[in-house]
């Protein structure tokens, strides 16, 4: 019977073409949106983890309360010994010390006086220790657009946008003006080794990257660090792992009465990323539900139109003795065939677009100029195993539900009236 129905669908394109196109388009959109949303959310989380939040982060409680201000006067003292303890106690994580600071970049003229000034957000990271993964973790090697990576203390990288605004080039000297850990004014000279583009507006507006030893010297933070980041060796954020480690650490180290005692926070507890992670699953559910509902309504209407067009055919079939249930069943089988082929076509088409967005992305830099969280400017899709069936099942279901709703009309036909209707 399937072959019979299939032939019918092929030969009578009015019966199959519109629903097939509708299902294919719907499935395609679901696949593309799902992969794109997955990509954007995953990239945003990873960007934030690598640059600012880690998968977990250790700070003093006072620092954590004023995190946005980068208050290095509230930094962790003896951070080096705490890092050693963390490495021993939680070997599943890589632990790195960071100093995140704000300040002014001051460019001198030939006489040593101010020629230009600009605001900056700086990262003090481990650039020079053999085996340090910080350069690769922050994708710095690939981000250098002019000059080279720092080779010795006193050299920094500066965002290309800031360098361009201040007419800086590799080899130039700049002064960082900031505050020391004790609140004094800090002025420290650096040499620009290279310029970088990270591909995220928040960082590209005005970032400098220096070795943490230089930043410690500049900000009078000997032995101290603002933050210790923990990044899972799995390479991705594992919510359960992070939560367990944070709870274990806080049980041993955190003393609520002492505002300078260390506290560990997971990625979810920083930069509103928890909401992003939670909402991402909600958004995906809503996306599928909206698709299912919209497609069902569209296909219900398509089914009603088809039903009207096939009014005579159904009447004839009922008049010659075919049971209403059988007619209804054949419609359902037809819809399953249309749904399957439409969904297959939709997945195939969707995957083509998803692949394109995964490789080339969508550049939304213009819309990200004032972004205050770290997000990539090129939004890329990510194809995951879920992408393959996220649209397929709703595609079949929507066709089925649409047909079931529109086919109810068959049961309302009065057998006694059929011949009169057919004569008319």
């Amino acid at each position: 019977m399937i072959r019979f129905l299939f032939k019918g669908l092929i030969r009578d394109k009015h019966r199959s073409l519109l629903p097939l196109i509708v299902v294919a388009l719907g499935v395609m959109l679901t696949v593309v949106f799902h992969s794109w949303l997955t990509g954007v959310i995953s990239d945003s989380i990873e960007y934030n983890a690598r640059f600012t939040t880690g998968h977990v982060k250790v700070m003093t409680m006072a620092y954590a309360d004023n995190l946005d201000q980068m208050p290095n006067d509230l930094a962790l003292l003896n951070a080096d010994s705490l890092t050693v303890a963390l490495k021993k106690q939680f070997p599943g994580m890589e632990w790195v010390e960071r100093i995140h600071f704000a300040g002014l970049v001051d460019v001198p003229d030939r006489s040593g006086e101010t020629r230009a000034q600009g605001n900056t957000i700086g990262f003090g990271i481990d650039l020079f220790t053999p085996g340090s993964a910080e350069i690769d973790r922050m994708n710095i090697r690939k981000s250098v657009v002019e000059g080279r990576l720092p080779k010795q203390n006193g050299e920094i990288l500066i965002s290309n946008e800031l360098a361009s605004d201040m007419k800086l080039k590799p080899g130039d000297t700049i002064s960082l003006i900031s505050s020391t850990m004790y609140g004094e004014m800090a002025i420290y000279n650096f040499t620009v080794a290279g310029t970088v583009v990270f591909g995220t507006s928040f960082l590209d507006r005005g970032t400098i990257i220096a070795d943490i030893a230089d930043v410690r010297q500049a900000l009078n933070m000997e032995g101290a660090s603002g933050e210790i980041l923990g990044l899972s060796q799995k390479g991705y954020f594992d919510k359960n792992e992070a939560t367990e480690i944070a709870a274990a650490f806080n049980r041993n180290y955190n003393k609520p009465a002492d505002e300078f005692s260390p506290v560990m926070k997971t990625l979810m507890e920083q930069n509103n990323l928890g909401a992003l992670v939670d909402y991402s699953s909600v958004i995906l559910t809503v996306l599928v539900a909206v698709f299912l509902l919209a497609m069902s309504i569209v296909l219900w209407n398509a089914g009603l139109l088809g039903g009207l067009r096939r009014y005579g055919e159904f009447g004839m079939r009922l008049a010659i003795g075919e049971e209403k249930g059988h007619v209804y069943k054949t419609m359902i089988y037809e819809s399953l065939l249309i749904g399957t082929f439409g969904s297959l076509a939709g997945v195939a088409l969707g995957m083509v677009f998803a692949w394109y967005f995964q490789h080339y992305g969508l550049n939304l830099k213009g819309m990200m100029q004032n972004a205050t969280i770290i997000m990539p400017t090129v939004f890329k899709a990510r194809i995951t195993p879920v992408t393959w069936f996220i649209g397929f099942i709703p595609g079949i279901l929507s066709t089925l539900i649409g047909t079931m709703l529109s086919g109810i009309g068959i049961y309302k036909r009065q057998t006694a009236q059929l011949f009169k209707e057919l004569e008319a």
Partner: protein
Amino acid sequence: MKLLLAILCLSISSAYAQYPDGKEILKKIDQNLSSDNRIFTSKMIIHGRRTSRTIESKTWTAGEKKSFTEYLFPAREQGTKMLKLDDQLWIYSPSTDRTIQIAGHMLRQSVMGSDLSYEDLMEDNRLLNHYNAVVTGAENVAGRPCWVVKLTAFDPNMAYQGLKLWVDKERNIPLKEEMYAKSGTLLKRSELSNVENINGRWYPKKIVFKDMLKDGEGTEFIIGNIQFNAAIPEYVFSKANLKK
């Protein structure tokens, strides 16, 4: 009704008539605290959330426009110099051999993490030139009878749009100050003590500043030696003097 209003107006005016003129008080304060120029050494004890630090400096000021400060202690700050001419400020850092210009709005930033801004530290504004004053009451501060004087800035660009002073009735110097923003927000509070008579003028040798918008226990500003109207060569207020 008219009679009632007249009685009310009369009683209000008679209440204010008990108080001296605000301008007269400002004039007397300026005579004590301001001078054509001055040279002083000072010690700033900054009480932070974690630790307290002491910074020592020597300052030369001439009128309201010129000021030069050299830091003497601690070693990390020694040799750092600041020159302020009008609304421009240059800071010389000996460790980097750089002279950095600080933009106008930066003058309201904290000096060395203290509760004082560059404007607080380096300006010697005569109150009479910048504020209108009304005496609103009388209270005791540190056991001394004081006039409560409310000041309103003429210039909308003044750092503090409103001041409230508790002025010693006898010695004509404020013993307590509150500095307000245009919105009415209390920005800073200071308490002045160790009042000494120096060359016929009363002068507080210790001021405790508290920036109400930041954590910490405040900053003690203690004046050591102070000379009023001493001869200061013009080169002191030059950029060339920063690198000397």
